[in-house]
């Protein structure tokens, strides 16, 4: 009897930033299931529904299996040589004609650290531009900008397990149980063990329903309630005087700036009752282990960077930072959005957050890569797409970015893609975006390659190959090496992801101590600066590397678009538990699609009644940019005057509606607020 090969391959989940490890079960080359890892430090043998179904999309018949080249209105099959040569010759032609800064490269937070490192190296060392960016621009760009100002680092200050030992959780703009279920689980453990949670969100969430305080602010008014809390903490002398004096700067200016945010004024702006603001402020300030957790509800605003800084102010004021179960924790959305940033897939940073604008850094990388580099800071993805529509960006190479679903104001984004002279897309499935490509390359997905993802608490976690990629699909790191070589750039002869990590570690100090050998048996967290260290679990212990933590003078400002007579409601967008982002993977996973098969809009009971809308009605939601027709979910779990639409559904794409207004510092779009109207369809 010939026996079958059965493998249980330890790897990291490809969905959210929790970074749960699990085993992929493979029989021969067929993936049959997911088994949780009982000994994993993050998941502890538990997973969310997406984790349990992380095998389901991998071997779906829709996978891209060979390179495609646009011909007429469709695509024809091409060889790898032809497709790669076409990309390189077109990019070279466009670069010669318009200069290298007419080209943009988008990498992907779904790809590994090693792949993101190579993608930014292609942009910088092969194409010659710093126009490299990825979807961090759409989620935590404002966190990086904000927390770098306040603390000197944009990362989560604590580790995931610490949530369960906090005695106060201030959670805002995060529907944690749906978007980071295994972090939510730690929060539940804290709450059921007696910790006090304050959840501030325009919607009631599964977490807010078990929280000590559940407050609902009008979308776009966060700075007002945050500054209001700061004012009370100062006025009632609940702040950490010694910490403020020795570890922070600009307290006096800050104190003066927040003095105008009286509870009465805050109630007027935010809708949160004034006594509740006072109670929340006292609770947060008086707790000895207080953790702030936030996500897109804070970052995705046209003043997102300022909201992030305002939250950081609270931690500086109370000294709630740099200690066990005490800190400021931006929860990263994508599995490897932290790592893609670390690896330098950002227009202003080389790997390891070293500034493009710094001449010394530039010469270090010129030496490492053997090529002269550009000293011009590159374009954020959102700006590059706007410039494409203006005809100023001429070519894009995109690894896995589904901008035609994920970027704000899709109609305008489409104009950009249509105007490009050349667009190359690398992906695992055909998407709304690959339609516009001149060349499409088929990529291997997470289950088909080796590498690392860095999760939201800075742990560098292994991704291991369980099955072969379908057809001729190749891992992105191999595609990047092939492109780099064909551009004639040195330093693209890697035989394995392990070799790429070694190079990343040699140029990025936070990763200096990390190697695949060590990851075999050790849990490593960055900053991990030496081979004999396992890295820092908590950041800013004993003080800030930048000298002093800096208070910011964040001011409340109205959102870029306010409601009007014609558009009387506020539309907010986001995710649900069962689908993930643009749905490319989850909508092809039957058990996930079963749970959330249809695009919907959440609308408050009273608003629905006034408009004659009942549960399950097909409705038309319209903004100044477009119109879609989801079904209505009528609920008292959303604030009156507010609508919520998840952005997973191509048949009613929420981003047809959203406002592309950008945060001045971080260039993140305002996904959380725009003016809308609803009517029965």
């Amino acid at each position, binding site marked *: *009897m010939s026996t079958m090969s*059965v493998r249980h391959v330890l790897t990291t989940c490809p969905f959210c930033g929790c970074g749960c490890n699990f085993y992929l079960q493979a029989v021969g080359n067929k993936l049959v299931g997911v088994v949780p890892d009982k000994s994993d430090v993050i998941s502890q*043998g538990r997973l969310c529904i997406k984790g349990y179904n992380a095998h389901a999309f991998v071997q779906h018949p829709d996978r891209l299996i060979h390179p495609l080249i646009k011909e007429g209105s469709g695509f024809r099959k091409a060889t790898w040589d032809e497709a790669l040569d076409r990309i390189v010759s077109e990019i070279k032609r466009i670069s010669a004609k318009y200069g290298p800064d007419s080209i943009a490269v988008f990498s992907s937070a779904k790809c590994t650290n090693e792949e993101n490192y190579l993608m930014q190296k292609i942009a910088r060392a092969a194409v010659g531009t710093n126009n490299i960016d990825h979807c961090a621009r759409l989620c935590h760009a404002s966190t990086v900008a904000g927390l770098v100002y306040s603390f000197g680092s944009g990362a989560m200050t604590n580790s995931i397990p610490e949530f369960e030992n906090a005695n106060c959780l201030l959670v805002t703009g995060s529907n944690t149980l749906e978007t980071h279920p295994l972090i939510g689980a730690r929060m539940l453990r804290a709450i059921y063990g007696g910790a006090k949670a304050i959840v501030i969100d325009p919607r009631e969430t599964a977490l807010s329903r078990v929280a000590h305080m559940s407050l609902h602010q009008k979308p776009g008014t966060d700075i007002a309630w945050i500054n209001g809390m700061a004012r009370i903490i100062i006025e009632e002398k609940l702040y950490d005087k010694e910490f403020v004096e020795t570890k922070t700067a600009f307290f006096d200016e800050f104190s003066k700036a927040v003095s105008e945010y009286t509870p009465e004024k805050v109630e007027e702006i935010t809708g949160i009752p004034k006594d509740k603001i006072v109670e929340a402020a006292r609770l947060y300030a008086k707790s000895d282990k207080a953790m702030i957790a936030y996500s897109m509800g804070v970052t995705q605003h046209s003043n997102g960077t300022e909201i992030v800084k305002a939250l950081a102010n609270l931690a500086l004021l109370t000294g709630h930072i740099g200690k066990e179960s005490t800190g400021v924790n931006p929860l990263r959305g994508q599995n490897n959005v932290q790592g893609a940033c670390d690896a330098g897939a950002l227009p202003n940073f080389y790997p390891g957050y070293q500034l493009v604008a710094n001449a010394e850094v530039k010469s270090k990388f010129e030496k490492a890569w053997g090529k002269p580099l550009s000293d011009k800071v590159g374009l954020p993805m959102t700006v590059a797409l706007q410039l494409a529509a203006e005809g100023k960006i001429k070519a894009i190479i995109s690894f896995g970015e589904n901008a035609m679903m994920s970027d704000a104001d899709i109609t305008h984004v489409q104009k950009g893609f249509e105007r490009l002279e050349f667009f190359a897309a690398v992906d695992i499935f055909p998407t709304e975006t690959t339609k516009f490509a001149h060349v499409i390359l088929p990529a291997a997905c997470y289950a088909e390659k080796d590498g690392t993802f860095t999760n939201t608490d800075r742990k560098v976690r292994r991704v291991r190959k369980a099955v072969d990629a379908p057809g001729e699909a190749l891992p992105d790191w191999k595609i990047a090496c092939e492109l780099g070589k064909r551009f004639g750039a040195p330093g693209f002869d890697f035989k394995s992801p392990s070799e790429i990590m070694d190079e990343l570690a040699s140029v990025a100090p936070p990763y200096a101590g990390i190697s695949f050998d060590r990851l075999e048996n050790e849990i490593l967290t960055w900053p991990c600066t030496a081979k004999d260290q396992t890295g820092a679990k908590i950041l800013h212990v004993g003080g800030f590397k930048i000298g002093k933590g800096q208070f910011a003078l964040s001011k409340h400002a109205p959102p870029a678009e306010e409601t009007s007579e014609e558009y009387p409601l506020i539309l907010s967008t986001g995710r649900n538990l069962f689908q993930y982002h643009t749905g490319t993977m989850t909508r092809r996973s039957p058990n996930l699609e079963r749970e959330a098969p249809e695009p919907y809009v959440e609308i408050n009971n009273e608003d629905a009644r006034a408009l004659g809308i009942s549960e399950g009605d097909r409705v038309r939601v319209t903004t100044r940019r477009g119109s879609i027709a989801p079904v209505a979910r009528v609920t008292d779990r959303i604030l009156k005057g507010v609508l919520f639409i998840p952005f997973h559904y191509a048949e009613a794409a929420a981003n047809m509606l959203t406002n592309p207004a950008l945060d001045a510092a971080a260039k993140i779009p305002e996904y959380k607020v725009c003016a809308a109207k609803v009517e029965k369809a």
Partner: protein
Amino acid sequence: MNDLGKKLTKMAFEDLKADYLLVVRQEHGDLAPAFISKDEDVGEVRFDAPYQLVTVLSRIYPHIPTGKIAIVSRKCDELAINELTKRGILDEKRIVKIGLACDGHTADKCRCPDPKPSKVDIGEPVKGIPEDPLVAKLMKMTLEDRLKYWVRQFKKCNKCFGCTANCPVCFCENQCVLGERTLVSEKSIPPGLAFHLVRSFHMSDKCIECGECERACPGDIPLLALRRMVHADMKEMYKFVPGDPKTVSPLLTTLEGEVMEDEHNVC
């Protein structure tokens, strides 16, 4: 390969003439299930992680058409295998058990009344915990307080379906009753009471009280206690305990011999 690995491979492949062996081993510093054939190295075998190996097997089994499988079985695995072979899900002739007696720590953690398999091949048998302390505590509460307790616990459910995914005797695959929309709506979390009650009743003639649902629950909902309370009724009313190799579920037998008066009536 460690000593335990050597002992198990000899037992599985020489004594029991199996073609495959399912164990838990140490890999990449973690504890991993491993399903190996005769010519593969079993590695560093461990038994201190209560993976429900029958669950691990159930997803692989449909893809392995032939061959005998040796599986390291605790008492609960043994009961699960009984329940599945009785129902024709697993082929009795293809499964051979290597009996593992759980240690005291595991028995405590699982609040297990009977941690000794019918045949002990490895491990030193210990005494079980006669009564689940949580069940005892809940039974002392008034019905009202008990309901309040469960409602508060169920608020932590985030619909991961880990209780079904990890259950060794959940075998409905794509026909899961929890996907039935009239019972469990597709709306957000937490799901309503029906989610937990429907599952409890649905499992009442299958659940072998291994507690894997409870261990897999991200919300720490004490699901094992819930199962046990339902089972106490099953035992009392029908004298039925799941996991017995012969006794058939009372849910399948209660109508036997009774007159079906309305059999020919058209509704």
